[in-house]
């Protein structure tokens, strides 16, 4: 029996320990991504000096010196690491601006997309799962199974393209790609999240267009997660409904709705938390493709351009960012899990 007083103490120690390990994990991530990007058999010089200057030895030498590409790979690595320690991710070969600034500019767009996708995936997935469990082997169950199967088995870029084709190109029900309508200026940059910025700066006319443009990409990105979560919730709901405590709840005279949505669902949601933690990773990879298709000016499309031009600093910067997001989201998942499942005490 653990006293409630030590609960927050152990929680704090757990979080602190995980935060201490984090730099070491990031060190590994940086090293691996650094090595892999350097081993790609291609030359980043093309994107730096342009194809025409590639035969001019003076320009090439100057560019190599400017960007530190004349040093040995180990030399490049040590100077990259020492800069990184100062919080400097270098300057992008392509945009010629600091990578940190590039990422900070683009992060809100990606978060906006990923969080909305996660919201669709979680809320939609739980609702569908509960519906399927309560109408087991009836038509609603079969429809939700099909829906889940489509979402989780088709690649996100294909879903994105088809959704765009159907809802935008074919029937014109939804606006086309992009975060904003054409020839419309972004709202004042306060948070970087267009939706919040529009509200904060009182630009309410922009709110609906922004939401509208978020729907398709977020749905394409969240559909897979929705599928996975709905199947998970269905099966764990069916398991929980067999449990003895459900019979106890009924014996108390509670309505089926309370038995379902309070007693069974509360326990059925625990596995969802785990999936959610890992889904961050798939949402980030999915965001790369979704952003490219929907001309979403976020980290994902930045990563694609960076890879195309072998923009070493940008590639490594995106990897570090992804690593941080993944580690933090797993930490949050563990903490939430401990909070939601009273049987788990973090040690």
């Amino acid at each position, binding site marked *: 029996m653990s006293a409630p007083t030590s609960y927050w103490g152990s929680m704090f120690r757990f979080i602190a320990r995980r935060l201490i390990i984090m730099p070491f994990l990031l060190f590994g991530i940086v090293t691996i991504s650094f090595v892999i990007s350097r081993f790609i058999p291609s030359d980043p010089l093309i994107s730096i000096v342009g194809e025409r200057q590639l035969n001019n030895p003076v320009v090439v030498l100057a560019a190599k010196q400017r960007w530190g590409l004349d040093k040995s790979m180990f030399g490049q690595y040590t100077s990259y690491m020492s800069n990184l320690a100062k919080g400097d991710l270098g300057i992008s070969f392509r945009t010629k601006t600091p990578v940190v600034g590039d990422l900070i500019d683009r992060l809100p767009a990606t978060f906006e997309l990923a969080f909305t996708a996660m919201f669709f995936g979680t809320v939609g997935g739980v609702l569908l799962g509960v519906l399927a469990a309560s109408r087991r082997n009836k038509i609603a169950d079969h429809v939700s199974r099909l829906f889940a199967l489509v979402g989780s088995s088709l690649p996100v870029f294909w879903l994105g393209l088809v959704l765009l084709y159907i809802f935008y190109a074919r029937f014109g029900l939804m606006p086309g790609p992009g975060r904003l309508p054409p020839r419309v200026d972004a709202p004042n940059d306060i948070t970087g999240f267009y939706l919040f910025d529009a509200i904060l700066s009182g630009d309410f006319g922009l709110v609906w267009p922004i939401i509208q443009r978020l729907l398709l990409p977020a749905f394409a990105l969240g559909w897979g997660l929705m599928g996975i979560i709905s199947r998970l919730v269905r099966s764990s709901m069916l398991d929980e409904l067999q449990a003895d*405590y459900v*019979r*106890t709840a009924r*014996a*108390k005279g509670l309505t089926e709705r309370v038995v379902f949505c309070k007693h069974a669902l509360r326990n059925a949601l625990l596995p969802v938390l785990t999936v959610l933690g890992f889904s961050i990773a798939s949402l980030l990879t999915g965001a790369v493709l979704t952003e490219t298709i929907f001309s979403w000016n976020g980290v994902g499309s930045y990563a694609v351009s960076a890879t195309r031009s072998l923009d070493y600093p940008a590639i490594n910067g995106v990897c570090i960012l992804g690593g941080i997001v993944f580690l933090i989201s797993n930490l949050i998942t563990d903490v939430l899990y401990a909070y939601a*499942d009273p*049987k788990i005490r973090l040690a």
Partner: protein
Amino acid sequence: MNSLLSIKDLHVSFGLGLETVDAVRGINLEIARGEIVGIVGESGSGKSASMLSVMRLLATTATTRGTVHFAGKELFSASSKEMRGIRGGKIGMIFQDPMTSLNPSFRIGSQIAEAIIRHQHVSTKIAVSKATDLLEVVSIPRPSESMSLFPHEMSGGMKQRVMIAMAIANDPELLIADEPTTALDVTIQAQILEVLKGLRETRNLSIVIITHDLGVVAGLADSVNVMYAGEIVESGDVEGVFYKATHPYSRGLLSCVPRLDIRESALHPIGGDPPKLSEKTPGCSFQPRCKNAIDLCETTSPTLRSSTVTGLKVSCHNPMEPSPQMSESI
């Protein structure tokens, strides 16, 4: 006698694929206010199924026939809304396994308070104070601190007390206890039985206790019904059944109880297995295992009749003699 619960010709069957399993085959039962009735039998004899059907808590694959009157109200024809008012309100129920019968995700205090709020429509604050009082009633130490415990932080006996507290939270008239002590240690069993006994004294609660443990019934019940293969084969007051049972099955059960007072008394297990409940035989369902069986038993099913010798009701064509040895002990 003014009976609180009156079960007439209750049948319960489960559809199991193509087979139908007749778990309960026409039982009659009367329970008076303040009475403790034991239902004894081995696993699968239909004891739990019959009581779950009273609460209408059986799986949806089950079908029931017959009538159940509770305080004058027929339950099988009641609406689901009326049933929800009765469940937990007028009839409380506790289950075999306290380890799994409480929701692992909620504090026990809130689980008890939930039952109170559901039926008494009081504020959370009042419900919590009532729940705390109930923990005191079932002798849980430090009631107010225990309110905030999660089920996994309590022992099995404590959890069963919580279950009892929850079942009696709305001052029901009837408590159905389905194998309440089976999952518990012997010492804890005795404590739980004391709690149940105390409730009858203080609240004039009627209790149906379902068990396969004759010791539990002996210490607690006023009357006993012995069930075999979905039927009541012998019933009567507790002393009668223990001392003067004449049905070969009841006698078999009694001689399965280990005894410390008689040296070298071997246990006498009842040979064979209970019948498959999906098969109907014309004769007595105990006949294949019965040492006392006569030809009639194979062809005609006996009915429950009062025996002039013992004063018990027995369903047997060829009952045994009341054993003088039996009456000396237990």
